[in-house]
């Protein structure tokens, strides 16, 4: 029997959807992704969560609610460690529990734990358990696993070529060609880094379309995902003690890399209001940008009330300033 699996379009989804979606589909499941974030989804989430939570977590609850009556299973994995070293933010760690205890009438959750610190084959074991839950044979699961991993790596490679996750996905599906990507990657003189977590940067609703706004202003934008994983890892040795959170470390490493290579004229840090780790990350980036070549730095804190107009004004002012610095205009 084939199941309908619901996948909330939020948080780690933005890093792993090529892997998850392909895996479920390979196994013959129907994947139902929640609709794109919008006011309704967010309002729904806000209702279910404590007001001290960050927007991404509130939003996630909204996405869960969007799916709850439509699916046989809800995929809310407990992502403990995604790189075998650090863990994710404590809210990720407690996510299935928060969801379970705050939203009523949920379909069965798939809340399997993924902790890559446990050993080399943990990812495989995770998928194997997942397949078992869905009643599939080991062989079927293995095939799906291999295939979806391939797709995931291909996706990563395209991100490194500066594709957005969405475009990369279209290329994989054959809806767009790689040449188009090459054409799209413009070479503008002013380059900025848009740093932050994929679930804020790539969710157009929650980031009030920041990424697109930047691109429309004729600046080159680099995100954490555009930097090869190996390069990020190399930055590790610059710190005597790293932070504990996967996404935060990636953000910091990306910044250090871009500063080292002198690749950007300015850095924008996008952070969610009330994000715990970011309280540290933000100050860290600010000080590093100052100490390494006095690179202009701007923090954009977003919450459920962030307005479009204010954001545009700030962004324009920042880009104008970078342009002037470069001697344009």
């Amino acid at each position, binding site marked *: 029997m084939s199941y309908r699996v619901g996948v909330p379009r939020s948080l780690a989804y933005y890093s792993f959807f090529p892997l998850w979606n392909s895996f479920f589909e390979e196994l013959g499941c129907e994947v139902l992704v929640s609709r794109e974030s919008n006011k309704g989804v967010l309002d729904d989430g806000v209702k279910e*969560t*404590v007001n*001290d*939570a960050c927007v991404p977590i509130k939003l996630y609850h909204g996405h869960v609610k969007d799916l709850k009556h439509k699916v046989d299973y809800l995929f809310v994995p*407990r992502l*403990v460690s995604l790189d075998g070293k*650090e*863990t*994710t*933010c*404590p*809210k990720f*760690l*407690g996510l299935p*529990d*928060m969801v379970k*205890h*705050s939203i009523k009438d949920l379909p069965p959750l798939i809340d399997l*734990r993924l902790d890559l610190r446990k050993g080399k084959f943990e990812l495989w074991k995770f998928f194997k358990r997942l397949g078992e839950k869905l009643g599939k044979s080991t062989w079927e699961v293995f095939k799906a696993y291999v295939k979806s991993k391939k797709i995931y790596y291909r996706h990563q490679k395209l991100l490194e070529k500066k594709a957005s996750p969405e475009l990369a996905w279209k290329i994989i599906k054959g809806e767009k060609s790689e040449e188009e990507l090459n054409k799209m990657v413009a070479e503008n003189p002013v380059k900025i880094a848009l740093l932050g977590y994929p679930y804020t940067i790539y969710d157009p609703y929650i980031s009030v379309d920041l990424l697109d706004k930047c691109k429309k202003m004729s600046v080159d934008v680099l995100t954490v995902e555009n930097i090869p994983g190996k390069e990020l890892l190399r930055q590790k040795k610059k710190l*005597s*003690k790293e*932070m*504990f*959170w996967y996404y935060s470390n990636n953000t910091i490493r990306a910044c250090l890399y871009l500063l080292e290579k002198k690749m950007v004229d300015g850095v924008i840090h996008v952070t969610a*209001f*009330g*994000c*715990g*780790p*970011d*309280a*540290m990350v*933000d*100050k*860290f980036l600010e*000080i590093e940008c*100052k100490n390494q070549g006095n690179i202009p730095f701007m923090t954009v*804190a977003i919450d459920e009330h962030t307005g479009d107009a204010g954001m545009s004004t700030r962004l324009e002012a920042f880009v104008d300033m970078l342009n002037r610095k470069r001697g344009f205009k």
Partner: protein
Amino acid sequence: MRKVSFPKMGPSYIAFKMMLEEFGHEPIEPPVPSKRTLSYGTTHSPEFACLPFKVLTGTYLEVLEKGADMLVSSGGVGPCRAGYYGKMHEKILNDLGYNPELVIFDPPLRAPWDFFKKTRKLKGKTSWYRTADILKRTWKKLIALDDLEIKASKVRPRQKNYGAASKALNKGFSYIEEARNAKEIEEARVEGLSLLENVKDNSEYEPIKVGLIGEIYVVLEPSVNADIEEMLGEMGVEVNRSIYLTSWTRDNTVADGEKDIKEAAKPYLDQLIGGHGQNSIGETVLYGEKGFDGVVHLAPFTCIPEIVSKSIMPKVSKDYDIPVLTLFLDEQTGKAGIKTRIEAFVDLMRKKRRKEVG
């Protein structure tokens, strides 16, 4: 001789001061966190850093002004932010032009070598033999301080004269402060306890009982939690605090150690999330099982593990029929605001108990 300072956390400074003196340093006593501390702290900390971080930033700046050149604090290994405090503070202080030496102790079991190196740094020329003795006495002092506080929380709600227990407690603290060798410390402890014992009481009064849980710093430092323990005590409530600096060697806390707490939390939160998050859930379960009248849950504003635990708390509270009051504290939290909420909560617990009895 170095001028060494450390964050203030309840009366523990009494023990740490002695330790530093005996290692041959000049201790710079950390001030009780005040408005000034907080305003220093908020100006120079990230906006969304949690309250303890800001208090520590402020404290460090104040003691640096007083000439401290070495700061000692505890670290952590995540996934809560506290473990990164030290590094971050170093960065911020350097950025402000201060270059103190920061000695951050991570838990000894996770990094034994590191712990050893830091102890060696702190002890200076003191022999290891003497160091062991100094550490032992410091520990004894910490235990004595905790014992007095535990006793005071039992005496306070039953006292006849308002404030008498706190007065006795402070007197006891001063005895401990003066004591030096093991024998003196023990005497000071016994003497302090008997002072509290002798506070006049209403012996037939049966106070309602509350568990006090939450993030360690805001639970242990009265100046940032509006003296909540005393406040509750003066309202006639017996407070059972879940965390004492020396608690893991004791049997008179709620449970026989962390393991039970974690077990109790499992059905609700099956994952270590750093900080005190999982404990908060587990302790509430245990207080519920033991028939406490309520739980007061303290957390710094933006504290991630506590946000997780707060979102699960309503379910625990319902399942165990135990009211829980969560207070998120930040630099703006005023004593008056807390008092109103505590009063309402105490009222609720009283009514509930009357209903159950009557």
